[in-house]
């Protein structure tokens, strides 16, 4: 569950925010608007909007600054006086923000208010998410003291791990639940971004600061000379088809819809089983395979062993076998390494005199205990479970190890 919320969910939120945001920008640009309700209700908006926007901008900048520059922030926050001053400023801004969002929610609540009538369901969801974010933020600042300091060691490493595609939620999974909700809700707001009026954030018109006051758009090149003869006939088709009768139009539309529906059903009937067959993985059971008598393996040596896959297909031929490097560390201690390099899966070779594994593809080198000695591999060699059963060494068949991000 924690993995979902701190690893999968942030990516889902970000991908949706960027993907849907871009789609909406290019396909439905008309819907990009701040959707201001100032025209219909002005009085309470002043208190809500100004407090909220200024407060949240500064608070967000502070969050962002610390996350982007952890090292300088650590220096700044290292001093207790500075930490207290900054925290107090933060709480002040947070309360300012909270006041703003509460006012923004309140002005839309009264049943007869005009502001309520221009509020969509998504607006309510967004207001609640933002309201909770401000509320939990202020709560954390007040009761989980020196958030500015622990933020650096918990959320910041986690955010960085997300940014470099090496997600690691270890630093945040242990935090109190209340704090975690702040994080999750933060990504919820990011997720809501493309589905709500929040899109107006990315259209802050900074360009206005330097563009010329007047905007003139030409349909033709203003400096172009006159065309020699404007009487040339253009290639417009001679006649348009006669307009359809309204009833005919209706019938045509419903027939089109039925056609699409029926076609879709047929495609699903054929497509879903085919796809399911293609995607269905053969889940092979894991089996213990004998490798040989204990005494056939000298202590301290690494040798190649091979064994059959768990449930080989009749036509698999030579590919039904798997190889591994078996090392006898002590009288009853065995380690079996996968032959697949953790870089890109090429077979590593054991060099007995040098006591090294070497990969022929991109030059990865591993020590005899499987740890990375040099080259591109990101992880040590993967090991197989090994056991001794009545004087026979047995190995447990395992999937090909795949190094994932």
């Amino acid at each position, binding site marked *: 569950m924690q993995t979902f919320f701190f690893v999968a969910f942030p990516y889902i939120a970000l991908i949706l925010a960027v993907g849907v945001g871009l789609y909406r920008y290019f396909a439905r640009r008309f819907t990009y608007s701040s959707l201001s309700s100032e025209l219909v209700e002005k009085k309470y908006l002043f208190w809500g909007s100004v407090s909220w926007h200024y407060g949240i901008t500064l608070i967000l900048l502070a969050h962002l600054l610390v996350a982007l520059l952890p090292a300088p922030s650590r220096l700044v926050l290292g001093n207790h006086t500075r930490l207290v001053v900054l925290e107090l400023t933060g709480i002040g801004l947070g309360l300012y923000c909270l006041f703003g969002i509460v006012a923004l929610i309140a002005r839309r609540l009264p049943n007869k208010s005009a502001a309520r009538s221009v509020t969509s369901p998504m607006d309510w969801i967004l207001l609640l998410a933002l309201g909770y974010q401000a509320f939990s933020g202020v709560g954390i600042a007040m009761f989980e003291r020196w958030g500015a300091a622990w933020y650096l060691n918990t959320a910041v490493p986690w955010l960085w791990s997300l940014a470099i595609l090496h997600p690691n939620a270890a630093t945040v999974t242990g935090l109190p639940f209340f704090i975690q909700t702040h994080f999750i809700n933060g990504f919820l707001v990011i997720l809501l971004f493309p589905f709500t009026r929040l899109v107006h954030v990315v259209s802050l018109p900074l360009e206005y600061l330097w563009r010329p006051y007047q905007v003139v758009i030409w349909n033709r090149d203003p400096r172009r000379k006159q065309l020699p003869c404007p009487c040339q006939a253009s290639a417009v088709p001679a006649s348009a088809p006669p307009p359809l009768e309204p009833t005919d139009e209706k019938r045509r539309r419903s027939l089109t819809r039925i056609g699409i529906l029926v076609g879709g059903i047929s495609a699903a009937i054929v497509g879903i089983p085919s796809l399911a067959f293609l995607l269905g993985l053969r889940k092979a059971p894991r089996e213990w395979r004998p490798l040989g008598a204990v005494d056939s393996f000298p202590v301290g040596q690494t040798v190649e062993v091979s064994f059959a896959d768990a449930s080989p297909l009749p036509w698999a031929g030579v590919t039904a076998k798997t190889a591994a490097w078996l090392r006898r560390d002590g009288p009853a201690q065995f380690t079996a390494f996968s*032959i697949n390099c953790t870089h890109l899966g090429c077979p590593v070779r054991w060099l007995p005199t040098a006591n090294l594994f070497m990969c022929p593809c991109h030059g990865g080198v591993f020590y005899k205990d499987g740890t990375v000695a040099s080259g591109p591999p990101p992880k040590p060699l993967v090991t197989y479970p090994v056991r001794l059963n009545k004087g026979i060494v047995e190995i447990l068949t395992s999937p*090909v190890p795949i190094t994932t991000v």
Partner: protein
Amino acid sequence: MRILKQLWHWLDDITGISKSLGPILTHPVPRARKTRWLYVFGSATLAAFLVQVVTGIALSSAYVTSSGQAYHSLQFINSTTIGRIVRGIHYFGASAMIILIGLHTIRVYLMGSYKYPRQMNWLTGAGLLMFTLLMAFTGQLLRWDQIGFWTAVVAAEQAGRVPLIGNWLGHFILAGNTAGGATLSRFFSAHVFFIPALIFTFLSVHLYLVLFNGISEPPKAGRPVDPRTYRRWYHSLLESEGIPFWPYAAWRDLFFGTIVVLAIFTLAVVAGPPELGKPPDPTIVSASPRPDWYFMWYFALLSLIPKWTENWVILLGPLFFGLFLILVPILGGRGERSPLRRPWSILIIASVIVIIAHYWAEGIRAPWSPRLESPPLPASVVGVTSGPVADGARVFYEKGCEYCHTVSGYGGIRGPNLSDAGDRLTPAQMATRIFSGAENMPSYRGELTEEQLSSLLAFLSSRHLLQVPKPPVLKTPGK
């Protein structure tokens, strides 16, 4: 003769071939004077593709789609002369197709032919380029010798880098927990049915669009494309100086296509198909997987980039490449077409070519690969046959130093050349390096006995460049 003519008239009457195909064949195309020979790559790619279709069908009639038997069926094909030639044509046809589609893409990009209204031509072409690369990859795998087998594993590992679903995706590609019986069928189906179906679809749209939008005229600096006026202008251009495609422009396509086919055939006969390696037995660990030449540069890339960028390159590299292909016509759909007014396009193509060529050369050299086949240093290099220096040379070989370090022309080239180690380093410095290791070198702490170390140091210290006697300094008589 008369009967044939009558038959044709009857056939034409009931099918309307000349009415439908005639105008297509003779549709006007712009006259391209200096650059007319640059317009042949697209049709030549098509020719190469047709070669692949024909030879592919022929090969599939004997190929056995089974992890255990594919290798033997290929051996059978190879055992017949015609089979060898057909395999050769299929191999060199693939190479030709890759080269030609690359040239075609570069030509279209440089000439700005993807601009309005031909954006969709470009996008379908980009799809075809991707599918061609996929075909090359899966095709190499179907050879199902040792290299083919490991290619499947490497493919699964690369797909495995995708966050979250990587593990599942990798095993999906292998069709199971390990590369085994079910793996090959999957790639066979993709190579023979799925991707070709996509290619045929995209190809139809691509050709339709070429007819619909017309062949782009040669670009001219200072004549930008304006979507508002382009079509009308293009039609007036065709009216005033267009030439019928058949036969005035088509003959060049035919001529060049024939040369391509002849070249493919000659190479297939003279050079023959790529030899099969060892059987795809996963227990033969002395395999040394290498991609075919068209992916050699990518192979090198994955070794040479910094470690921490690897995930980004594997994941985002293809994504950005695809995004670039998609964005090119969308963002640059209008304006100047001539490369003379688009210096960035020249720079981009030049850098892509330089980068790929560089990595390609590096991939062939593979300096990062240990030279596991290096023989022990001969006495002529060591200089002595006994004593600490000779012992040290043996240690140098046994402990694997030689796989990565060159001494007088023997050994690998991953680490520094040690032919003159004695000139550069003191024994103490050498010992430090041997013990501490580095990013690219394992640490030998605990691996060497006292004697081994001292003899190794003795050997390395004895490595000097040949001392060239210095010319005597002539004293000039003073004035």
